């Protein structure tokens, strides 16, 4: 299968007054053409920073990609100049964000904003670009695209704006689409519309999608593979069916159990006790150990490696030899 993206040993740190925040601390994954990888985790786990790193949009000088490789179609993005990256962003790799209102420019029409991408990357004239924009709006299911193309963002509803964002992101037929919480700001019936659209477009255009979200339900609906992150590291990674049917890492198990199940009735929900550790004072050993029911002595001393265990990868001493793993 054609590999679009390969991330190896990615480390993105932020240097702040309070110390060094290791937001992404050694992340590896690959993504193939036409596949969707869901990256899930709670606030501060590094999922968004991972996607920003792929786009090379980490805000410098505070943030810095300190180590690793990001291979896009075999080409290392970390070796590119800013000018080369500009040719890639919005063209070969594009991104949609959580908040469709703040990511569209309020003083330009929808058509104007989609045209910009097409003129810049494909050298189209305004006339050609407008025709293409209308075609894109039609593709994402916006009614009356000939009329909507001349409207401003405030004239559209939240769901429509997110469709416009998707139209813009897909205008140049990118090989990779990064969607960072694309439906979080939307209502559930509109979310269902957008998820259907993303599934349909993936099949028709063969775009590889990196879907960043905190909602395990959304991942279960659209992703082929899931990567669960905790405190800057991948704790579990595998096929979507595998992970939801047989979660192995205690954190993944806890996350799945904390969502109320609508087909079942329980008095109290299972919870993960405690809080995510302070990013400046990560515990030694496994970063989940202080909240883990199964924590052993080894977990507090050594960092378990991400090991392969029948079908999917997991970073936990419950599945492997606790004498291995790095100290610290």
């Amino acid at each position: 299968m054609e590999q679009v993206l390969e991330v190896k040993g990615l480390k993105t740190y932020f240097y702040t007054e309070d110390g060094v925040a290791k937001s992404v601390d050694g992340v590896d994954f690959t993504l193939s053409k036409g596949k969707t990888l869901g990256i899930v985790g709670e606030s501060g786990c590094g999922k968004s920073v991972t996607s920003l790193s792929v786009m090379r949009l980490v805000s410098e000088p505070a943030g810095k990609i300190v180590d690793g490789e990001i291979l896009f179609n075999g080409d290392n993005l970390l070796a590119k100049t800013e000018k080369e990256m500009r040719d890639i962003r919005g063209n070969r790799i594009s991104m949609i964000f959580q908040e469709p209102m703040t990511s569209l420019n309020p003083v330009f029409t929808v058509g104007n904003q989609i045209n910009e991408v097409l003129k810049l990357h494909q050298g189209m004239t305004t006339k050609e670009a407008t025709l293409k924009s209308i075609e894109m709006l039609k593709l994402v299911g916006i009614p009356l695209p000939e009329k909507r193309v001349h409207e401003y963002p405030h004239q559209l509803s939240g769901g429509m704006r997110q469709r416009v964002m998707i139209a813009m992101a897909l205008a140049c037929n990118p090989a990779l689409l990064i969607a960072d919480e694309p439906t979080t700001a939307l209502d559930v019936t509109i979310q269902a519309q957008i998820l259907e659209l993303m599934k349909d477009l993936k099949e028709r255009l063969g775009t590889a999608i990196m879907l960043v979200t905190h909602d395990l339900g959304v991942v279960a609906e659209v992703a082929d593979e899931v990567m669960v992150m905790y405190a800057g590291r991948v704790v579990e990674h595998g096929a979507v069916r595998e992970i939801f049917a047989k979660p192995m890492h205690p954190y993944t198990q806890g996350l799945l159990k904390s969502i109320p199940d609508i087909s079942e009735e329980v008095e109290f929900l299972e919870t993960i006790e405690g809080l995510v550790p302070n990013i400046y004072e990560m515990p030694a050993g496994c970063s989940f150990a202080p909240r883990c029911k199964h924590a052993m002595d080894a977990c507090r001393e050594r960092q378990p490696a991400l090991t392969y265990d029948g079908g999917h990868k997991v970073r936990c001493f419950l599945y492997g030899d606790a004498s291995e793993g790095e100290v610290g």
Partner: protein
Amino acid sequence: MSKDVLVEIKNLKVHFPTGDSGLFGRSKQVVKAVDGLDFTIRKGETLGIVGESGCGKSTTGRAMLRLIEPTEGEVLFEGRDIMNLRKGDLRGLRREMQFIFQDPYASLDPRKNVASIIGEAFKAHEKMSAKERNERVQELLGLVGLRPEHVKRYPHEFSGGQRQRIGIARALALKPKFVVCDEPVSALDVSIQAQVVNLMKELQQKLELTYLFISHDLRVVKHISNRVGVMYLGAMVEIADKQDLYAAPRHPYTRALLSAIPSPNPEIRRERILLQGDVPSPVNPPSGCRFRTRCPEATERCAIEIPALKDVGDGHMVACHYR
């Protein structure tokens, strides 16, 4: 009125005038955020209210406590109509009716420490020495799972889940009977969400509280509520016992809404009812049934006649001509 009813809402309306008042102040438009609600809340139960943005669920909660003045209607608390109370009497009533807000970042004063945030209620409502007040604050902190040393800290020193615990402690300070919870866990991460939901359930049992639980999260509402009401564009379209509502939704909107919940189990694929288009503007809602413009089953009658909320058996109420 039956004995076990704590709150009764009759024909509640909240209309907001909009800024667009025409060139000479004529043709003033009105947003009908809540447009004629009737429901009751029983003692000790949790009534969940679900619906999408703009359906009027938060406005309903606020209007019931008169944090927003309703345009019309009655709110009976233990049989007393609170709409006619003067400010002074209302203040007394607020001891018994409290509110938990969505955003734990915005609803706590950043310049006050926990002792004064929670203790403020005692200052306003009860004559109490500083020592007594301090004891009560400590007691409340323990109740919501915070530690005694937290009393001197400021909101920024807490995580989102802990802040929401402070908000809950504040709401419970005066031992209210009824608490309106407006999206209390929506801003929290799932693992923290479960902790706070469990806490709220525990406190309800311990203190015999009655909740109105407003949320867009259909899973959380199912978990915490006894009965659930579904709102659409300012009106209640269905209200029933939660088992009933989730197992056998009757209104076409409820059906679509429930089918849209993404399932965290990829093996379970429910048939999804995809609604077309968006929610219409509450300035100019559709005639007849408000849902008819998106309803897959709408007929001519739906455009003419407003469906009444009627009992279809066992207290399951639906507002649809064809149920």
